Every structure is written in C-alpha cells, then in structure tokens.
C-alpha cells in the first residue's frame, strides 16, 4: 500500500520535472528572486525589507501557480488520456492513487521551494554579506508558505476530482484569493446581521485561512513569529488538507470512469 503510493508519487514528480512548463516557471521565479537586490538598491536603507517581501511573495505566488496548474490536471488528464485505466486495473485502490498524486505534487513543490529558497538566501547573502540572527525567522515564513501549498494542492485535487480543469483552476484561484482575506471576512461578518452574518461567518471558516499563514511582512520587519502560531498553523494545515483529501477520495471512489 505505502509502496504503491510511493511509486505513484514518484511518477507524478517525474512527470512534473520532465515538463518544460515547470522549468519556465521556476526560471522566472529565480530570476525575480535573484533580481530583488536591484530593487533594493533603488530604495536605500530598505533593501532587506524589499528583498524579503519580493522574494518570499514570489516563492509563494509561483508555487501556488504551479500547484494549481499541475493540480488541476492530476486526475482529469489521466482520465482524459485513459492512462488511469491501466493503473486502476492493477491492485491499486482509488484512494492510493489520489494520495500518490497528492504526495507527488507536494513533493514537487517542496523541491521547487527548496531551490527557490536557496536562490533567495543567496540574494540575501549578496546584499548583507552575512546572515543575521533574525534571518532564521525567514525559514518560518517559508515553512508557512509550504503549508499553504499543502492546502492548495489538496483543494485543487478535490476540485479536479469532479470538475473540469478550467473550473478547477478558477475555483482554486478564487479560494486562494479569498483565503488570504479570511480575517477580513470575519470582520465583515461582525458588521452584518441575521442570515448574512451567519453566511459570511460560515464562509470565512470554510475557506482556508491563508491570512494567518502569511508572515512575510512581519519577518521582513524582523519581528519574531510566535511558537504558538507555528503550532496552530501546522495543525490547521494538517486538518484542512486531510479534510479536502478525504472529500476528494469520497467523490473519486464512486466515480464512473466513462
């Protein structure tokens, strides 16, 4: 069981790294991260703030774009091309297939993030000539970004297990966007009354709370991230991804592959 999930995950990873689109995206991301010292030079005294904001934001956005674009095809492409038939006609359970796909993409994103992070730290080193104590906080920010990827990937997989790639992409981007304003939604719910209050409140809890996982500007200003937040976000990501994956599995298990 674990072996099969591992093989499927590795094959998913292999597909991603053999795709030219991925390289183009990673190349642009690295270019952006690498060129941030140039932006820094324009704003004297604010170099580090600009570099951290721009670098980490591009890691986050490029990763999200990769997660969604690969994620929407994870299942639908296999159905459309009928490659799934020769997999599911083996002793592979449908949930094993989905989990394999999930971990494959998650692994791809982790490797990507790793390389982009190296690029980012190299740029930082170029700017400051040494790492300071507060730079450790940057790792926490990157960890939170990876947690967001885990959630986004699970959500995309959920959408792609029942809808078309285009709709899945739209849903996932919308959710990513709204998720960044989950706290604002809660604020809005506070103003509203009656049914509207409950609807908006419900929505704010349903969408992934990416706001709480975005500590980029905080670490850019060298403010520490609390251990409680690290714990809270870790548990939140674990639960959210598990819930989304379980829903995806429930849908996919019943699906007729016509």
């Amino acid at each position: 069981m674990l072996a099969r999930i591992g093989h499927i995950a590795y094959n998913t990873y292999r597909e991603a790294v053999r795709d030219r689109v991925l390289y183009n995206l990673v190349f642009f991301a690295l270019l952006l991260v690498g060129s941030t010292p140039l932006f820094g030079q324009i704003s004297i005294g604010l170099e580090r703030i600009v570099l951290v904001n721009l670098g980490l934001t591009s890691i986050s956005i490029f990763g999200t774009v990769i997660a969604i674009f690969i994620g929407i095809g994870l299942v639908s492409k296999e159905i459309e091309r009928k490659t799934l038939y020769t997999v599911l006609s083996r002793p592979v359970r449908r949930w094993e297939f989905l989990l394999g796909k999930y971990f494959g993409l998650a692994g791809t994103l982790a490797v990507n993030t790793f390389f982009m992070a190296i690029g980012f730290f190299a740029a930082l080193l170029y700017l400051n000539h040494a790492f300071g104590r507060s730079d450790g906080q940057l790792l926490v920010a990157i960890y939170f970004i990876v947690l967001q990827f885990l959630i986004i990937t699970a959500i995309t997989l959920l959408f792609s297990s029942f809808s078309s790639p285009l709709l899945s992409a739209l849903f996932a981007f919308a959710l990513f966007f709204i998720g960044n304003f989950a706290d604002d939604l809660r604020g809005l719910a506070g103003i509203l009354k009656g049914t509207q209050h409950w609807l908006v409140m419900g929505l704010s809890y349903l969408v992934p709370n990416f706001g709480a996982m975005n500590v980029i500007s905080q670490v850019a200003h060298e403010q520490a991230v609390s251990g409680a937040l690290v714990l809270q976000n870790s548990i939140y990501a674990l639960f959210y991804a598990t819930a989304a994956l379980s829903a995806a599995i429930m849908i996919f298990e019943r699906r007729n592959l016509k």
Partner: protein
Amino acid sequence: MNAIEISGLQKSYSVGFFRKTEKVALKDLSLEVHEGEIFGYLGPNGAGKTTTLKLLMGLMFPTRGWAKILGKDIDDPLVRASVGFLPEQPYFYDYLTAAELLEYYAQLSGVPAKERGARARKMLERVGLAGSENTQLRKFSKGMLQRAGIAQAIVHDPKILFLDEPMSGLDPIGRREVRDLIQELHDEGKTIFFSTHILSDAETLCDRVAVLNKGELRGIGVVADLLADSGNKVEVVWQGSAATAAVCALNAECHTTGEIARAIVAKTMLDAAIDAIRRAKGNLISVTPVQTTLEEYFLKRIEQGATAGGNAKADSAVLEVKT
C-alpha cells in the same frame, strides 16, 4: 473454477445535458469463461464490449448484477494482481520511456524489485519492441503503442488477460504477430478474454465466442458448434443432367454447367438426393458440407436481434470484416 463469471450485469449511461435519459449500454449479461480458454467477445461498434470490460476492471460500476474473476468479486482490488488489461486504443505516460513505463506498472502490480528490470526488457522484446526500450512513448506510433499496451498487460505474468480490440491499429504483419502472441500466452495456460469486431481474428483464435449486439447477448458457444449449427447443408455435385429435375424438387438450389450439376440441399435431404441421382444413372462426383463462416453466423444473429427489436437500422449491423 470459472475464470470469469458474470451474472445479470447491466449498465446504463445517463445521457443528455438538460434532460437526462438513461441509455442502456449493457443488458442483463450472464456468461462464464472457463480457465485456460481463449474467449472471443464479438460485436459491432457500440455493442457494449468496452463497457463490459470497464465494468470488469472496476473502472465503472454496474447498475445491476455482479461479476467474479477467479472466484473473487470484482470490487476486491486484490483480484487485479492476477489480471492484465489492454484498453481500447491505449495511451500511456508520454514522458516515460518504454522501459520506465513497464517498470512502473510492474511496481504497481507488486513484481519484486529485482525482477522488474529484466521482466520489462523481456516483455518489450516479446511484443517486438526490442531496441525501443529507451525511447520516450511520445515518439511511439499507434502500432507501437498497441504493442507497449500488450507488454504492460503481461509484465506481471497475470493469469487472465482482458484485451479490448488487441489487433486494432496494427498492420497485417502486426496483427499476425499479436495473434501468435495470444496463442503463445494461451499455451502458457493463461485465460484470454478479448473483444473484437473483426471476425477473422476470432475465428482462427477462439475456443468459444459470445456475440453481443446493442448491449444484448445474441449467442455463445464453441466456434465449431456455432458454425455447424447454422450450416447443416451439403453441396452435392454430379454428372448427368437427367437427375437435375428430381434433385431440384427436394427444395435445393441448383446450378448446371453443361454435364455437371451442383445442388445445395439440407443434410436431411442428402439420402434422397443421392438416391435420385442413382436412379437417373447420374455419376456422383462429390458431397461436401457447406462451411458457414463466423461472419455469416454473426450477421444472421444480429439481424435476428434487429427484427425482434422492431425498427431495424441496417447500418448498425454492419460489421467490418477483414481477412
């Protein structure tokens, strides 16, 4: 034990976007396939062959009925460790090489790690893809994909093979090779269930066939029996035109060419025909049973079904026949 047991299997698709209607693609199918036989699943396009195979592979779920493979229910995924499946017009991960593809499938079927590489190479060689091991599948032609498809179906040495139109997309030599390969696999003791709309393939290979049309089973049996059953006529050839009138009176089709006369009569009328020839001092040349081809049988079965169903649409019964 039966290799495959199907009972009352039914599948309907819901079609139409706004007003959904049920379209029955497979109607109350029951059949058994014995261990070690080559079973031909015949029917024109749209008969429901692919639907049946997808149900058996657990890719779709039946509306009604059940099926067992090697005595185990088809929704038990472990059954599929001993099953190989070639889908119709297969397509594979085009970023992998042929060897990588086979190794991946061997992994999923639980082939031990040390055997995988060797098995992959052996199977590719077996289907005539030696030399293409390290070619990416995106560069494969349709015929090569079909061969790769067969290789992936046998890479884990399954007991039962399900092949959906295994000869399609191949040139005459390729078809011949696949036919030989199926025969070889059968000789190794594997059970083979294959669908086709090309009758000559089935006629040469199969122990038994089932004929399907519009989702309904129209006939099933041993190829030779089916043919004998529908072809109980004999051709009588003799010399001497004096007997012609008497023989033709026996409800026969007669042709005369000069002194030689030919008549096709029912087997039950054979004695009477010979007597008539003798009485007229005719010279009997030959008596041969008339061979019905599977094609004729097939067409007859499908026509019967069509007339029984009321408005027969001629083109739906057209079969592609290749030699």
